């Protein structure tokens, strides 16, 4: 395990929850044949930590996230949020997907209110929706419909829709993957700011090495399918970070090597 000598106060135990994955295996049935996707994955996230999962495309990162979210059940192994086994989806673990998947028939405000409405607590908590929209800077678009938003705005609404539930664990499944590079850089900074402010535990899946290094306390590198944990690298730099930091450049080289791309760099 990597030493956690991190300079900044990153943990907010009151808000974030610890996440514990022990010997998780998973596989898909494809035309009767079993396709293993996760091979004995064990991973611990401390409360309030920001961990990035890096791995080659199709290695099973998103599958791992679905297990953490409780959308699918692992074939074997145990997943725990604090001390409770994860048995199904729960609003304390919210996912932001690669596609914003806003409900097109709902206005921006109603989309953000979705979680509170589904839990039956919208009445009396309407100001939380307003606050979440404020947080992502989209108060002016509260009555707009999703088809009127740009890609970046839609993804910010999806972020607000997640944050309004005060999640203990925020699961980000390549949330910036489809955005243009300028919007992506701006939103990376926003995500760090939101995480520092709210203190939830964050698990980010990405295939962008720089993004992982810019955001996370720890980068977990996964192997090709079936995914195993290849390396567990602490990023010992406080936020805000600088993209040109030679320390990050050195880590990037190391990680690209682990991903089998050393020859090109």
């Amino acid at each position, binding site marked *: 395990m990597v030493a956690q000598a991190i300079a900044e106060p990153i943990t907010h135990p009151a808000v974030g929850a610890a996440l514990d994955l022990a010997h998780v295996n998973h596989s898909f049935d494809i035309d009767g044949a079993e396709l293993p996707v996760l091979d004995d994955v064990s991973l611990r996230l401390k409360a309030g930590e920001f961990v990035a999962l890096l791995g080659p495309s199709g290695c099973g990162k998103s599958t791992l996230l679905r297990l953490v979210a409780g959308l699918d059940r692992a074939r074997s192994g145990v997943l725990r949020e604090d001390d409770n086994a994860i048995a199904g989806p*729960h609003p304390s673990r919210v996912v932001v997907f690669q596609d914003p998947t806003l409900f097109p028939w709902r206005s921006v405000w109603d989309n953000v209110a979705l979680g509170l409405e589904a839990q039956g607590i919208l009445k009396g908590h309407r100001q939380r929706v307003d606050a979440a929209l404020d947080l992502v800077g989209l108060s002016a678009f509260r009555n707009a419909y999703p088809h009127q938003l740009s890609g970046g705005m839609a993804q910010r609404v999806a972020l607000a829709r997640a944050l309004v539930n005060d999640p203990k664990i925020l699961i980000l499944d390549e949330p910036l993957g489809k955005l243009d590079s300028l919007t992506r850089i701006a939103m990376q900074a926003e995500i760090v700011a939101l995480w520092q402010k709210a203190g939830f535990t964050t698990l980010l899946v990405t295939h962008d090495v720089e993004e992982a290094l810019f955001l996370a306390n720890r980068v977990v590198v996964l192997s090709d399918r079936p995914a195993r944990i290849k390396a567990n690298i602490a990023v010992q730099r406080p936020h805000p970070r600088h993209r040109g930091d030679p320390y990050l450049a050195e880590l990037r080289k190391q990680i690209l090597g682990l991903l089998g791309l050393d020859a090109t760099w």
Partner: protein
Amino acid sequence: MSTYSASKAVGFPQSVEEGVALAGRPLSLPNALLANGTGVFASLAWVAFGLSCLLWEDLGDWSRTHALAIAAFIIAGGILAATASGKWLGRFGTGLQPRAAWLLALGLFLSMWEVATAKFAWLPLPFFPPPQAIIEVYTDDLPKLFDSVLASVKLQLGGYAIGAAAGFLTGVSIGWSRSVGYWVHPVLRFIGPLPATAWLPIAFFTFPSSWSASTFLIALATGFPVTVLTWSGVASVSNAYYDVARTLGAKPSFLVLKVAIPAALPHVFVGLFMGLGSSFAVLVVAEMIGVKAGLGWYLQWAQGWAAYANMYAALLVMSLLCSGAVTLLFKIRDRLLVWQKGVVKW
């Protein structure tokens, strides 16, 4: 882009704004005529219609020829006045301008119709009644026509509402639950494509009254398309929506009511529209054969008496009612589906 491009071809004002701007300028008479040409010609067409009523003797015995001519002159005057004072009439005036070409065509059509039937009988007479004969039906046979409209609307509304509700519920159930789908799908597949009118003979002796039999048939005709399209709508909802709702704490009832149904609504409205069409067909047939009331029965009755004018009059009313029902459905859809881009305008 305006849909009414007739005025464009003749070189008249291309847009309402342009027309209004032209009308505001002090113009000599020929110029004013050119600027509002379509309106003026429309007015002339209606004058022609009025004259066509008066210039020759009627070949038959119709009592409303003079009244019709007077009405045509009044309409002609109205069109002319509205054209001249277009910009003072506000929305009505600006709404009239692009439709002037329609009024022109209508006036010409009525004149030809009048001449071809009442005056020279180019079209064989009892089968092609002149306009005044149809007006006569509306003035002299109004109570019976009105009762028929009422009976038709009542029957149609009841059957359609039952069919739409049943179809919607069935469709949602099949789309949502695998086991409901297992049992209902074969029934739907077996019975659905059968034209509802094929049930007519059976329905009329199994149901206690011809009215309840007809309601059942109309509901059946409505229900099938509504069921199939609701079902396909619910089945095609992306799993990503369910995933999002589930991670946010949604229970199954929320997934059905707040995810599946709103996502399926565009499909549901296609089903409702198709159901409306097939239910009209069943309504008319059921009224002709079983129920002794309604516009379908009125048509049948008029044919029995060789009262051809009454048939055309009833047909016109029926077409207005059906078109009105479709318009109403589309209005409701536009209200409910404002979030959709580019819906078809009716």
